[in-house]
């Protein structure tokens, strides 16, 4: 179980603003536009950056956890320990344990493992990191933008990996379209460092966006200080036609 209580993260300014969130025994999507704080929140949960408040994984406070080998992430920071893909595979096998033959899987996808990590294309990098993370057969997955720059054919493979591995966790994306692949999952939405939800992905995608606070709303968001409601029916802008969540800001400005 992942439980966040009043979580704040600061860089030069506050980027995560009092997030409360609970993921209990299931995989959820965290949707948000670029710069909304998705990766920052995931980094804090993965123990990579400091935070204020409380983040607990299976009852343990993340800042105090030592050697709990049940959590995996594909965040790039977790892969800087090796120079080549082969190095990273070897190191992961030793310190986390790999349950599948990553090298063979990557070669099937046309990725040579003697390459240096930084020589990979953006899409290849995402695939390599996601596969290595999931190959540790983790209980909890923290997956950041697994479809970013990945071509359409390989996206289906990544979807299958994400459905197969990990008992619970958070999958972050800014693409509403890809969320359709996970229609039975719950989704949280992150905007300007605040998290809203959950709502089921199928409800989210079939909802419409209307300005203001609607009493029958599935979910009420706050964008640039203005309330926006996601409601059932067709009376506003259809969510599944939006494509990505940046468009919500355009709708508010219109």
């Amino acid at each position, binding site marked *: 179980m992942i439980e966040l209580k009043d979580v704040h993260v600061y860089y030069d300014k506050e980027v995560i603003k009092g997030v409360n969130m609970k993921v209990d025994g299931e995989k959820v999507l965290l949707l948000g536009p670029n710069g909304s704080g998705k990766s920052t929140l995931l980094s804090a949960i993965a123990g990579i950056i400091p935070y204020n408040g409380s983040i607990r994984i299976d009852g343990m406070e993340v800042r105090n956890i030592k050697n709990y080998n049940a959590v995996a992430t594909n965040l790039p920071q977790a892969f*800087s320990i090796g120079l080549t893909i082969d190095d990273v595979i070897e190191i992961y*096998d030793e310190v986390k344990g790999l349950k599948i033959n990553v090298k063979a899987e990557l070669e099937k996808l046309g990725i040579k493992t003697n390459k240096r990590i930084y020589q990979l294309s953006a899409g290849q990098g995402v695939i390599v990191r996601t596969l290595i993370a999931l190959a540790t057969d983790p209980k909890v997955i923290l997956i950041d933008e697994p479809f970013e720059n990945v071509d359409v054919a390989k996206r289906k493979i990544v979807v299958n990996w994400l459905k197969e591995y990990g008992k619970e966790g958070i999958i972050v994306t800014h693409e509403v379209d890809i969320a359709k692949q996970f229609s039975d999952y719950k989704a949280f939405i992150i905007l300007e460092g605040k998290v809203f939800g959950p709502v089921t992905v199928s409800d989210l995608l079939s909802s419409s966006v209307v300005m203001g606070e609607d009493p029958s709303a599935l979910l009420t968001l706050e964008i640039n200080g203005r309330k926006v409601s996601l409601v059932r029916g067709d009376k506003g802008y259809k969510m599944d036609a939006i494509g990505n969540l940046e468009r919500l800001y355009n709708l508010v400005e219109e």
Partner: protein
Amino acid sequence: MKLPLIFTKRLLTNPYALGWGIAFMFFWIAMGAFIESASVTNSSAVYYTASWYGIIALLATSSFATSIAMMIYYQSGSLSYFTRFSKLTPKYYLFSLYFTMLVTTTVVSVIMGLGVISLFSYHFGETIAPKNWGLFFLDAILSGVFYLPLSLFLEELTVVTSRKLSNAISFIPIILAYLFGFSYMNINLGNLVYYSPFLSIQVLGMQSFFTKSIPLNFNDFKGPTLNVYYATISLIGWSIILSFASMLLFRRLYYKSLEEARIA
């Protein structure tokens, strides 16, 4: 044992470390053997050669220490994650680094030793080699054991405080090595030899070429002589202090963007 072997392989095949730590050192060895030696008589050839070995041992290992610091620079982002969510413990990570540094300094000291022995012996027309091989290798090992926690501590300090300091701080070991190394040959430093780990590395390297104690001050043959135990204990003491300091900071590491180190 995969981690220490991967680190060792990476360091021993790092072209920058090999360039600065070995190729550039051979430039200094050749300078000492053929250019600077013009006025050296055969009666002082051993002392002269030993002094060059002392400084080469100091500079070569400092170059590798800087390379290790750069390795840590890139890896420190992973450590906060791995120590929480994998079987990697600070002890095992540090063991891997110590293993890497010990193997590397041993290999480098053999190469540097062979370089000094062959070129200086060729120039002076007599075989000049260490008399105390135990001290020769002990010096190499102790220099690695000192330089590693120094580099680790400095790198951790930049992650905990500000990455902006990284570019300057990574080179501190090599800058201090040059500073102390050449100061020893030109200035009477007295007991500072025992307090400075850099000087201790240098004088122990020199001492390995003799059976009798060498002068404490490079140019003062009538003054006090070197106490090998004091220099060894000083070096071990510094290594222990820096190891504890680096271990204390280790658990406080969090990722800081490498871009923060950019100054332009």
